[in-house]
């Protein structure tokens, strides 16, 4: 546990309040900009949880990636999209996504097959809780290569899906 100078329960309650209030504000804010800022505050609260759990590296990356990059993307989108355009969302017709569903199912089956095959080879004991940052790479790439590759596959599938969804046909 990290030595914060205050009892960990108090720190937990403060962080939980910040995170939950930020999340609620993100949904309830009348102006989208304030919603995005509340989302950033909520992300910072989550980073605080990582610090509390003795994972400062993860906390820093949470701030850099989510607050530094994702929120910038959201802000950029809000500022460039005009209000009237944001209101109308077209609904997909029935049967339009059947091919996508087939491919997604195939991907899910193949990934779970690989996971089932690799399952017995995974270490049964979890790594020590106070793992130093310098050992993070060897543990991830040495002991858990298959989950890492599956995660990478899922992320790239999600990226491709986002590209296809965002593509506007003209």
């Amino acid at each position: 546990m990290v030595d914060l100078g205050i009892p960990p329960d108090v720190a937990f309650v403060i962080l939980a309040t910040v995170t939950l209030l930020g999340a609620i504000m993100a949904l309830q804010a009348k102006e989208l900009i304030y919603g995005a800022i509340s989302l950033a505050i909520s992300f910072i609260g989550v980073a605080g949880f990582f610090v509390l759990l003795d994972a400062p590296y993860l906390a820093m990356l949470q701030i850099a990636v989510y607050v530094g990059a994702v929120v910038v993307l959201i802000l950029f989108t809000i500022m460039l999209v005009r209000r009237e355009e944001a209101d109308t969302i077209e609904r997909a017709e029935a049967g339009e996504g059947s091919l996508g569903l087939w491919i997604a199912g195939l991907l899910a089956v193949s990934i779970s097959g690989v996971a089932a095959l690799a399952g017995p080879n995974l270490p049964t004991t979890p790594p020590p809780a106070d793992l130093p940052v310098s050992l993070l790479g060897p543990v991830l790439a040495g002991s858990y290569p298959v989950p890492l590759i599956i995660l990478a596959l899922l992320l790239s599938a999600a990226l491709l899906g986002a590209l296809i969804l965002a593509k506007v046909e003209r």
Partner: protein
Amino acid sequence: MHSNWLFAGRIGRLVSLPATPADILPFIIAVITSHTFITIVVFPGFIHLMLVVMFLTWYERKLLARIQLRIGPLYAGGPGGILQPIADGVKLIFKEVIVPYKADKPLFLGIPLMLVFLGALPFAVIPFGQHWVIANLDVGLVFIFAMTSLFPSMILLFAWASNSKYPFLGGLRSLFQQVAYEIPMWISALSIVMLAGSLNLVDIVNAQSKIWFIVPAFLSFIVFFIAVMAELERLPFDLPEAEPELVAGWFTESSGAIFMVIFLAIYMKLYLMSSLVTVLFLGGWWGPAFLPQPAWFIIKTLVVATFIIIPRGVYPRLRVDLLIKVGWTRLLIIALANVFLTALLLNTGALSALGI
């Protein structure tokens, strides 16, 4: 060094709290003379930071004036008008803060304070000497990365909150410039992490006791320095505040105290990036023993800041498309290639002659 993660409550634990009214004065003296208090408030904390930032504003004006055969600040007392920053500060505090019509007032007034906060916070992990560091974090470099990655969103928010065309254009330019150059910057810092085997800035400086990392990692020094110039929006990368096109870029609408705070944040970031170059490449506090460690650190940092300032008096501005092209197609590729080169050199032991 997990216990150093936050400094809240550290002072209270170093000295016992006063029990009777007679103990209050010794308690205050014990707090003020404690190492924690001095590192946070005096050096390398608040007072030192303010003094150096004020010096840098005067130094830049004087240096640019010399380049252009002018005299620069002269009348504000001291040698060469060195009290000019104080006069400027007093003038700006007493000026009216004009909030533009239909501007988003909370954001317009709040973001500049946030910028100063983000500029000052990373100094908590910068080591000015073996023991002159406020928080000796294991993840110091990633901490600075996280804090500096928040700058573009703050700048974009301020530009948007100004409700004016020029700031918004400047804010957009600042956003895509900083996002584009952040990536080669931190990838080139990666080879330093590989050489030192640590993300802790104190460990990185200690690893340079024999040879500065600028020698084995010269390529990544070049990439890092160019990316730092772009991150700081310095010429030839000062498109976000291009005076002929955008008046003053993303802070066009700021006035009075708000402008002063933004100015402070900009120079704080200049000092931060220069000291980061010193830590990563120029051996931090190492130097001949006739000067104390922090003195060497500050001298090196000011030399780096000089080389960041000089192009402003010499070079013209880049075009937007060239800027993005240089960032994404040249610097990124060089930085990535450099990572593999460093891995190769480390793996074959070619650097063992240098003591790495």
